[in-house]
């Protein structure tokens, strides 16, 4: 009964720690040496990957940019079959990084790679 749900919304929000907090986005500086790629990646030595972590709230409000599919899946998990997994927190927007690398031919390559840093999270 959506009336009940709307009535119960404040509890839901309180339960989820009130305002939407994007503390789900975590910093993670990683070096290409740690990945074993430094023999051919000259620069940068490291970059901040950033990643999404945490559970998705019970009520995927509009500002989570969650697709309708995730909203329905969260209801299915709660009301129909708990074997259907709860939506996961994943990156929503990304940004590129530029890399300087050496190719096997000995050429030196400057390249901008898309989608290398997570800038915000959503639930999917």
């Amino acid at each position, binding site marked *: 009964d959506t009336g009940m749900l709307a009535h119960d919304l404040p509890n839901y929000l309180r339960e989820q720690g009130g305002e939407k907090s994007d503390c789900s986005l975590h910093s993670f500086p990683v070096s290409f040496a740690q990945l074993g790629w430094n023999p*051919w990646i000259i*620069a940068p030595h490291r970059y*901040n990957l950033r990643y999404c972590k945490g559970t998705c709230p019970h009520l995927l409000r509009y500002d989570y940019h969650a697709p309708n599919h995730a909203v329905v899946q969260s209801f299915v998990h709660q009301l129909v079959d708990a074997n259907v997994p709860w939506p996961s927190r994943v990156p929503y927007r990304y*940004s*590129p990084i*530029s890399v*300087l690398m050496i190719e096997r031919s*000995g050429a030196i390559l400057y390249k901008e790679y898309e989608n*290398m840093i997570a800038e915000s999270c959503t639930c999917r």
Partner: protein
Amino acid sequence: NQSPLPLGSLPAVPTLPLLQALRMRAPGSPGWQVGPASGQPLRYMLNLYRRAADREGRPRRSRSLGTNTIRLVQASSHGGQPWAGRWYLQVLTYHLEGQPEAEHLLRATVVYLPSLSLAHGHLLCALELVVAGEAPRVLLSPTARPRHGWAEVDITPYLALGNSSVGSLALRHVCVRAGRAGGHDAPVAPGHPFLLLYLNDTQAGLAPPAAEPHRHQC
């Protein structure tokens, strides 16, 4: 004390597209022809990189290079003894085949040092394009003011844009030593000019985009 598994019996590890893409570029893999880059070309690209991106690799929007890929190609072969008295003449070949299809050429330039200070006097240099069957053609003068001494000459028209059959490019690097002849010190050879290919990579992701994976119902 188990004998190591013969390679043939190891399970074929499904290589992730990303690792596949990186392995194609990895040094040490078969086909690794030339040792790591060094000297002037590497310094030039490091300066270009520092202008284009911050310490964490984030592209500086204010300094966009106007493209997402720039490849520096070094001369892969050059003629014999270059010096004759004051004159230096070197024929340089640049191999261009094997460019990834997804990378579309926007512009091509050759970068060289028009003049080099020596202990006694200095070296003045020019470039000639060697076109098969024709007398060498002097390239136009540098298209931009030399930056840190480096001059860049646009050679895009010579690469017959869109004609992917251009396998290699030949240049003649001509220099003359000006000023008092030095003592008996060995003449200083100028660094070899190198090509810069400004490309638009239409697949700027790391991994070559596999076609939409056809997944069976689990």
